[in-house]
């Protein structure tokens, strides 16, 4: 045999054209929807199309983006994760009590942040363990862990609002680089990290594979349980970071720091083209979904839709966007769950 490296380039170059490798047309729906929604709001509202509002949208997307990256790995496996509110709450209070704050004399700075993220990862790990050891479906395992997280947070909260005085953490929300808050850059870093993990790490590719055909992995001698636990742990870490980010934005640790992020992250991921059945989509898909959801929230305020109707209009547009995105994939005998 010739040197394999040479051989493979030759062979591969020779027959590249037909089989599917990269992005395909069916992934184009969500980005198109994003452009359309953006265009409509830009046409309707002068305030929407300003540079500062675009910055605002990006800043506003930061926390949701980090949560959604975490949840995307879980969704890729075909599992679901409702633990974000609890884990974010626990991490928010933890970090607020560990960095300089008004409740105690701690001033751990970066270490405090790391501990909060680790705690969050631990809670995520708990979900994974319940799934693989107790064989409890992730829906319930993560719902349980969310309750545990909220309980822990309430314990630590102990009735008095911890406000942070750590300049670094406060600075994340306030200071800007190239027009974007540091938090937004952190979120962008997470997107990049998530994408690298999805593309280049065994964990990411196996998560994707578990969603595609879990039983085949077992037949190939791969023990999937550790990877499942690792994915939930990773997701937990992202939620933890998101909790820290919320704390930085509010300068205070709130038990409710993660309220509502479970469903909005799932919505964002699905709108971006990640399937709840697993095996499709990924970080970049989800990021598009996050932008779509954030643009919607912002745009509805900008064009002045009544607060009473905002939720409803948003729901309607999300359904419409998903419907439009699935049209090209519709088949007679297609299974939709």
């Amino acid at each position, binding site marked *: 045999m010739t040197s394999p490296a040479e051989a493979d380039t030759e062979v591969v170059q020779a027959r590249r054209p037909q089989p*599917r490798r990269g992005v395909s047309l069916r992934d184009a729906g969500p980005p198109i929807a994003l452009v359309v929604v953006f265009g409509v709001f830009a046409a309707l509202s002068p305030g929407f199309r300003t540079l500062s509002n675009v910055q605002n949208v990006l800043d506003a997307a930061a926390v949701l983006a980090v949560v959604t990256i975490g949840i995307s790995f879980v969704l890729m496996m075909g599992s679901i994760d409702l633990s974000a509110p609890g884990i974010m709450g626990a991490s928010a209070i933890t970090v607020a009590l560990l960095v300089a704050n008004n409740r105690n004399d701690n001033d751990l700075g970066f270490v405090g942040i790391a501990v909060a993220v680790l705690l969050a990862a631990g809670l995520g790990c708990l979900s994974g363990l319940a799934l693989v050891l107790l064989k409890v479906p992730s829906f319930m395992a993560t719902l349980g862990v969310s309750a545990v997280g909220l309980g822990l947070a309430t314990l630590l909260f102990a009735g008095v609002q911890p406000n942070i005085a750590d300049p670094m953490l406060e600075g994340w929300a306030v200071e800007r680089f190239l027009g974007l808050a540091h938090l937004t850059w952190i979120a962008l870093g997470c997107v990049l990290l998530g994408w690298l993990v999805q593309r280049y790490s065994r964990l990411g590719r196996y998560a994707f594979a578990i969603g595609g055909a879990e039983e085949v*992995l077992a037949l190939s001698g791969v023990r999937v349980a550790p990877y499942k636990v690792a994915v939930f742990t990773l997701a937990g870490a992202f939620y933890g970071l998101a909790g820290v980010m919320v704390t930085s934005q509010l300068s205070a640790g709130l038990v409710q720091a993660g309220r509502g992020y479970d469903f909005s992250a799932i919505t964002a991921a699905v709108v971006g083209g990640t399937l709840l059945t697993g095996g499709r989509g990924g970080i970049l898909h989800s990021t598009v979904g996050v932008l779509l959801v954030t643009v919607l929230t912002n745009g509805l305020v900008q064009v002045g839709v009544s607060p009473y109707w905002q939720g409803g209009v948003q729901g309607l547009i999300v359904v419409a966007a998903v419907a439009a995105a699935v049209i090209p994939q519709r088949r007679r005998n297609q299974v939709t769950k």
Partner: protein
Amino acid sequence: MTTNLQTGPVPGGRTAPPALEVRGLVKHYPGVKALDGVDLVVHQNEVLGLAGENGAGKSTLLKALVGLVRPDAGEIWVRGERVRLRSVVDAANHGLGMVFQEQSLVPNLTAAENIVLGSEGPGVRRGIYHWRTMRRLAQEQLDKIGSHIDPLARTDSLSFADRQMVEIAKVLRIEERTSHPPVIILDEPTSVLESKEIETLFTQVRRLREFASVVFVSHRLDEVLDVCDRVAVLRGGRSVGEVPAAGAAPAELHRMMIGSTGSDDHYHDGLAERSEEPGRPRLVVRGLSGRTFRDVDLEVRAGEIVGIVGVHGSGREDLCRALFGAEATTAGEVQLDGERLDLSGTRAACAAGIGYVPAERKTEGMVGPMSVADNMTLTKQQARCSGPLVRPRKQATLVDTWIERLSIRTPHRGTAIQRLSGGNQQKVVLARWLVSGDVRLLLLDHPTRGLDIGARSEVYRLMRELAGSGVATVLLADSLEEAIGMSDRIVVMSDGRATTEIAAPSGGKPTPLDLVKEMV
């Protein structure tokens, strides 16, 4: 003709220990003794065929050989050394690898990843993918079998045959785990392949023999005799003997499989015996177009069996699905017994008296966790009801009748269908359309896929019986021989169009070659 198991000739004349030896393997399932003391020897550099009826225990035996089934008793020896196989990895470390009866690739990964899955070696270092290395490793495997696919193509974008090649490339990775020649196990690899693909596969199997041993399972006995050196036969979970392939006839193998002297000619017997002339046109298709087929005209008369042949991608499967309302059409008209047929959905098709047996049994044909009885009566619910209410007794009687008539081997009608062997599952799926006796048109997509000879001739007999009673049948056959043997007329499809029609009356059958010429 039957030779002693322990002293078979060693190819090459050396007296090396056999590559693999099984002694007295036993495996019980609730209600079934799947393996009842199996003995088997696989020599170095030989292709051993394994034959047996549906449910004889072939898959169970093979799964035990790769650590997926934990036997209740018995021994497995690899190259003269007794081993205990606890997992696929264990088996791979001993040089045993298997291509499963149902394809087992992760559809959303690249071919390269599938090939190295679970044994990435230098392709993944510290959890990080090195795509160049991965691609190289995969390419090495593909080169071994001379496949030209792109290792970075997503697996679900590959053709069926290419995927099978990926599976073989993947199983050959076990070479990297042992310094010894591997034993490659192929469980019914041909049941989903077209004849051309089968040829390619056989070329690969013969190449494999140069450096490995192969265990090959197929219900097409001529195939088995063609590619194997020796054939061992299982019956009821026991080894009942073996024959050297050279000079053996399928009928002889079959006799061993069923333990009695059955009829010799299962492919052809009775083919000519249908007395009635086909009746008036029952199905008339005019200018039908859909996603993968264009402008198809087709006519099937009552009592007629029309085979449609074509390669993968010829559009024949989608045509069938369209006639059953399971695939959208863009133009054309279909009439059934002179009435315009509603193609809007499967429900309408069923109501019109159309039956459809899909090729993908596991995902489309049966509802795995549901019982044999419920699977059988899923379509014709009225057959088990009086008024709107289900009558369990009525269902039981009906189902038991059909279990008996089709010799479906199941512990009980209440057993989950997924516990049956593949062939028996297929019979249940077929029976679904027969229980009420009101089918006018049957669309059969590979109805005998995975069936043993006995079950197959049973299905043939049934088809003929149905045709005799006036049912029109469209058959997408498992092999050209089957198409020729069973059909009154054969339509060739290529590139989405029905290009040629060849009459195939009994007595005037075309040859496979005649068809192949038209197909490409």
